[in-house]
């Protein structure tokens, strides 16, 4: 359930709801970190749930001593009223059998808050790509049938690739085709739930492998930015693009502590 930080419940009518799927390489979550950190979004509440493994830590977006002591939990909501953006960040994995109930509860709340649309940032196993996908861009989009016509037109004009359907049962030749997102975590469940609740939902994902997924996260936010224009567009130089997204202080030591000198 949503629990606001302040006394009153914020009015999210007409807002764009951004969220990650806990997926391969945690790319969606890393991308959310970049968005929340760069736009300096303000925490407006918690999504208190029994569906995620509990975790706590100090403010992951701390920039100075003064703001480093605010406690953060596993599911928090941030907002940027000037751009009518609201973001959910998920920081832990789902408890077994609880991912579907989570999607149902979350989307019910989003629908009752009258958000204009939901954008899900996700990823899928790159080793599952077929030959055509291997030769094309690693980014894909997927829309529920309730996405506004204007958004559909804009996306078409960007020449983006729609997520292809694949055989439901790969080993069988004449199997039916359906949307499969291997390694996408709750992405497919969110899509199905979005369709059944008639929610305008746009899923953006990248084909990735596990490893240092920071470049993948940067790629995904740039992909999102092509459409949403959260930051002013810049030249195609990848270094310049990396510099304009602010990496949060919590990204320190992503691969563990320092090495013992005796190792060398």
């Amino acid at each position, binding site marked *: 359930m949503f*629990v606001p930080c302040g006394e009153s419940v914020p009015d999210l009518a007409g807002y764009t709801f951004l969220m990650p799927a*806990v*997926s*391969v*390489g*945690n790319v969606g979550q890393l991308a959310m970190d970049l968005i929340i950190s760069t736009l300096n979004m303000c925490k407006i509440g*918690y999504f*208190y749930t*029994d569906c995620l*493994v*509990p*975790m*706590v*830590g*100090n*403010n*992951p977006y*701390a920039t100075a001593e003064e703001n*480093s*002591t*605010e*406690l953060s*939990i*596993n599911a928090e909501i941030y907002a940027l009223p000037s751009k009518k953006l609201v973001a959910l960040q998920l*920081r*832990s*994995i*789902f*408890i*077994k*059998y609880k*991912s*579907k109930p989570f999607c149902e509860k979350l989307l019910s709340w989003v629908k009752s808050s009258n958000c204009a649309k939901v954008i899900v940032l996700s990823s899928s*196993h790159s*080793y*599952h790509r077929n030959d055509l996908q291997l030769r094309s861009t690693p980014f894909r989009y997927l829309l529920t049938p309730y996405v506004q016509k204007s958004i559909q037109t804009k996306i078409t004009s960007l020449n983006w690739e729609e997520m292809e359907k694949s055989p439901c*049962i*790969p*080993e069988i030749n004449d199997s039916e085709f359906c949307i499969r997102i*291997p*390694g*996408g*975590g*709750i992405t*497919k*469940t969110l899509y199905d739930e979005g369709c059944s609740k008639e929610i305008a939902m746009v899923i953006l994902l990248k084909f990735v492998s*596990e490893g240092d997924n920071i470049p993948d996260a940067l790629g995904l936010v740039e992909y999102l930015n092509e459409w949403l224009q959260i930051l002013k567009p810049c030249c195609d130089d990848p270094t310049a693009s990396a510099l304009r997204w602010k990496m949060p*202080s*919590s*990204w*320190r*030591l*992503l691969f*563990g*502590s*320092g*090495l*013992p*000198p*005796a190792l060398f």
Partner: protein
Amino acid sequence: MRRSGAPRTGPDAGAAAMAATFFGEVVRAPCRAGTEDEEEEEEEGKRETAEDREVRRQLARKREVRLFRRQTKTSLEVSLLEKYPCSKFIIAIGNNAVAFLSSFVMNSGVWEEVGCANLWNEWCRTTDTTHLSPAEAFCVFYHLKSSPSVVLCQCSCYVAEDQQYQWLEKVFGSCARKNMQVTILTCRHVTDYKTSESTSSLHSPFLKALKTQNFKEPPCCSLLEQPNIVHDLPAAVLSYCQVWRIPAVLYLCYTDVMKLDLITVEAFKPILSSRSLKGLVKNIPQSTEILKKLMTTNEIQSNIYT
């Protein structure tokens, strides 16, 4: 709880994340986003029969957290803190934290048992016996007879991730308890602590703190720096307190000895001067003696030849 990694054949075989090792073999690599189980769950959901659902229901019932009074052998009908309203809730999670509270806090004053949690998971089963030894798993609640609004919990058992929320509901209840301050004590292995130096250069044990927004007094040690995080029951309790705006502080002792250890327990000593424990700690020299006795009892028990 995760399924054992038996080799899978059939349609879901392709869904496993595969990785090649240096030796040229292909192994099933766990995906750090924890997504493999999602695919398994989806497939399971489609194939689940009424029998599977019944097995799952029975397992869920076996894993339920139950709160009861050992003296009367009756279960609590409401949450513990609804039955015993409290202004100070102190909880020790793990054997070293439990030993600290036993020796330094519970040795002074008369503590009456008000409840006991019974639970089972793959890692532990709580004991029903009244005489608790440090080697057993238990979760017992006490209040101070002279000041019943001070409630203490000694929890040496591991509460699994699917039981933590239930534990919170049975203890704290579903509505927020205001006018209460919570103190949590626990230990973690020093290798969990992330720092730019190597962990081998750290002088453990050392204490770190995490506090909720409404906890206004200065903690007894430095705060846990980013990017370090805490999980399990201490995180569940602190999350509950942060969301419902209850002043709470978690004192975390990073140690390289996870079994009962004198030096690790003594690392919690700075907390004795805190407001949470003020008035509850009387005789420190006597406490140190009690602690030493606790250590020797445990050492004898841990000798596999007796």
